[in-house]
């Protein structure tokens, strides 16, 4: 919701376009629905996390606990997802609620506790991971029912379910941020917290909302992750928060708050996904891929900040 139509956003779309064209020329097999859907499936978990963390970044905060919450939620969901135990809805809701609780705690510590978001979520990162190990007793939680694992492997009218979930989440969040009162309050809080408070906005409430949504979406991502690996892994999601924040930041979300949006974040996630996928196709080792990814993240932010000045 930048009032100006950022040149940088166009730059992102252009960069994306260029890479797509280059890829299509070099490896024509990507010009297929099959490839597109596979790519989308691959970025869906990161996409959901990135949309969630966008909320937090918009308020000027950060959430480092995403990966650990993914693991915790996955373990919690898996625990309820054994065949014949409960209805399918139970593990899904349990995972999301686990994430929501973590997010709420983060929000509470940041607002009432006045602890810096970096530290607050760093603590949650460690604690949630620990909880995941406790609940799973250090072992992967396996023997999951088919309709649960089908959440990751299944299709809805030909579209992978995780992609559908990402689309729905993105649409709802975009509407919230762009058209709803509290969405506007989020931007105001991140843009100038002091002025937002002076305008009568409940800044603490806004931040609680942001961290809560981020946590809940991380819980959802954890459910999908557990479904995909057909186990609740306590060591799942390692470093997921960094990829999520990278996607949001490449997509134009400012680390100081007040700038960004769902659309940009999705583009950022897409860009990262395509680059990963391309590098895979060229058999670039994953070690090199990491170096390249790091350079892209810094490069994107640098360009963004130049554009602001």
């Amino acid at each position: 919701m930048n009032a100006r139509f950022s040149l940088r956003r166009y730059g992102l779309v252009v960069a994306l376009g260029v890479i797509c064209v280059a890829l299509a020329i070099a490896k024509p097999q990507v010009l297929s629905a099959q490839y597109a859907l596979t790519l989308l499936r691959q970025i869906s978990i990161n996409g959901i996390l990135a949309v969630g963390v966008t909320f937090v970044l918009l308020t000027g905060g950060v959430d480092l606990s995403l990966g650990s919450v993914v693991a915790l939620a996955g373990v919690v969901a898996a625990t309820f997802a054994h065949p014949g135990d409960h209805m399918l809805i139970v593990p899904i809701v349990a995972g999301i609620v686990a994430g929501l609780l973590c997010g709420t705690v983060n929000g509470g510590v940041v607002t009432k506790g006045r602890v810096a978001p970096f530290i607050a979520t760093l603590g949650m990162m460690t604690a949630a991971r620990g909880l995941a190990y406790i609940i799973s007793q250090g072992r992967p939680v396996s023997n999951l029912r088919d309709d649960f694992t089908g959440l990751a492997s299944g299709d809805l009218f030909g579209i992978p379910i995780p992609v559908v979930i990402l689309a729905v989440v993105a649409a709802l969040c975009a509407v919230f941020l762009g058209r709803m009162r509290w969405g506007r309050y989020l931007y105001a809080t991140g843009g100038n917290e002091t002025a937002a408070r002076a305008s009568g906005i409940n800044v603490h409430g806004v931040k609680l909302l942001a961290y809560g949504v981020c946590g809940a979406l991380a819980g959802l991502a954890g459910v999908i992750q557990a479904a995909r690996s057909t186990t609740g892994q306590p060591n799942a999601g390692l470093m997921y928060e960094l990829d999520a924040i990278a996607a949001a930041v490449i997509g134009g979300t400012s680390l100081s708050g007040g700038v960004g949006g769902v659309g940009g974040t999705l583009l950022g996630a897409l860009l990262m996904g395509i680059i990963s996928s391309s590098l895979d196709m060229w058999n670039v080792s994953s070690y090199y891929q990491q170096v390249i990814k790091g350079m892209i993240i810094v490069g994107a932010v640098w360009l963004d900040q130049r554009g602001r000045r």
Partner: protein
Amino acid sequence: MVLQARNISKSFPGVKALDGVHLSVERGSVHAIVGVNGAGKSTLMRIFIGLTEPDDGEILLDGIPVRIRNPHDAAKKGIAMVHQELMPFPDLTVAENMFMGHEPLSWMPGWVDRRRMYRQAGRLLDELGVSLSPRQKMHALRLSEMQVVEIAKSLTYQARVIIMDEPTSALSRHEVERLFGIIRDLRRRHLAVIYVSHRLEETLQIADRVTILRDGRHVVTCDRAELDEDKIIRAMVGGEFRAFGRTAQRRCGDVLLSVERLSRPPRFQDVSFQVRRGEVLGVTGLMGAGKTELLSAISGLTPADSGRIIVRGQPVMVRRPAQAIRHGIAMVTEDRKTYGLVLGMSLKHNVTLSALRRYCRGPMIDRHRENAAADHSIRLLRIQASNRDQRVDQLSGGNQQKVVFAQSLLTEPDILILDEPTRGIDVAAKAQIYEIIARLAAEGKAIILASSELPEVLTLSDRILILREGRVVAERRPAETSQEDLLRLAMPR
């Protein structure tokens, strides 16, 4: 003549802060600079200290024209400043503060010769006649002692000109005497001291020469012997001021807001007043008298410690801005960049921010209603922008101020609080805002107008409260007072 300013001019967008100012400061003298807020004192000092450069004119040191690029450069050239708001390093020692940035080095590269540093610090403090240990941590010092350290710091730079900005505003009588002793000592050592202060009585005690600035121009410079308080005040204010453009006495209705013994020491204490429907209550005083803090308490931004706020006869709790807005109180802030605007957002979004609930259908924002509200505000206040979606940081100061105004007005307040509403705005926009204020009063709003600009207060108010050091010291009607009277009442004793 150690320091000279010739024909200095400096403008900021919309405002000419300095216009052809001259100043000559001699070695071994104390030269006072006096003027109301906005007269140009701070701008001139900022130029001397290298924080900004003049548009026109020249600065001469010992007769040679120089260019002062930044504070470090100023320090090297021998000009130092003791700021009103001291910013020491509280966790470091006195000596470390004094020599920050230019510590005496030992023969090993990068190593500080701490023994020499502490010895020199101790010696300087002795010379100034203070019994402070250079090893003490700064946070343990009283404000007056920190000030002395700041002066000593200037001496470590071999300063030849020391500028003191409102040095006595937070000092006791005894500490002021000690400071004056130090200043006289500096004078004996052939340093030049530029003394900027509102306290005329003290200024006349310590100064050798006095320069009076008004509206960015140099009015007069003369020896202390030729002046007294009255003459200075008259020169600061400049001639009789007739409140012009005032319509006939407004008809004021019943009391809308009543404030009883509101206190938040030390900022303001025991403040009581009433405002009626259709009335403009002016609140004036020097900067630091507590106007902003008082208004901030009534608008819920920083609640008072004690006292009552009564709206329409009912005592109310105003401990958060949202509560104030609910009771019909809205404030147009003094510091629009910090409290008023979200600079990255558009005009439309800023203007509707406080009253956003009114333009919603359920949780969703109704774009049409929002656009209509923004357009209405633009028309009403004549805000100049390319369109309602323009980012506010691209608007001029005057238009930004109008946006803050509009934001408050859209909450449909009955009580409107204006804190320095025309600060930093060009003359044209000022006139428009005056017109808006008059119109709002005519519509029956109760308006509290805080301003240190005396002509503004005299023109717009029905009644004027004078605040001094946090207390209400007097109340006047514009017809029975003058700029000089107000200024005299506002000045600390």
